[in-house]
């Protein structure tokens, strides 16, 4: 399992435990809790960005149906031959 997946799972578990503790009144609502919330939000956002970078420039999880069809449209054989000629000439 890669570091980003492990971090994502750890943050998910931590977030759930944090919310449960607050909901159960174990933590209450101290002043430092808002800083913890903000820190957690930054961690979650950072992990999302790292996961997107790892997946490459295309965000495959959030493509629209039209974007999927456009992304996967194969080149025609004429285009393939044109690319081949261009590469040989270039």
């Amino acid at each position, binding site marked *: 399992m890669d570091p980003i997946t492990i971090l994502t799972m750890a943050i998910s578990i931590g977030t759930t435990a944090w919310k449960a503790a607050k909901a159960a009144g174990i933590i209450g609502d101290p002043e430092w809790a808002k800083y913890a919330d903000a820190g957690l939000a930054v961690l979650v956002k950072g992990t999302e960005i790292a996961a997107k970078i790892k997946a490459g420039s295309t965000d495959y999880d959030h493509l629209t*149906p039209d974007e999927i069809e456009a992304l996967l449209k194969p080149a025609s054989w004429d285009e393939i031959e044109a690319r081949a000629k261009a590469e040989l000439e270039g």
Partner: protein
Amino acid sequence: MFRRMRDSRIVPVAIVLLLVFVAACATTPIGKAVQSAHVQKQIVEASAVEFAKLHLQGTVPEDSYLKGKEAYGKWAKGEVAVAKTLADWKRLGDTESGKRLSEALRLSGDLFRAYVDAVGQFVDLKALRAKIGG
């Protein structure tokens, strides 16, 4: 000749390993399916360009070239079907669209293997991998 034969045996294995590796990068089932199909498309198109270049240079005989071209055409039709069924699955997300997608992916896999059989023995694996970045 020996180098080509050795590389041609490695091509399908390397491609499958690359597809499995990149499929682990997206996080949702639809994301993984789209990513796998996209990587396969990049591999096929890059290898087709190499194949056409070799033909222009006189390395690929005419009959082999026509077989490769025909295999590419069949794969391309399968890829269009995969794209359409993936888009439908994203739109609808129901069991029926999932079944159509499974069937399209199965057919696409068969067409991909047929394409690799037709073109793989001529394509320089190292150049292909450099283009894909795998």
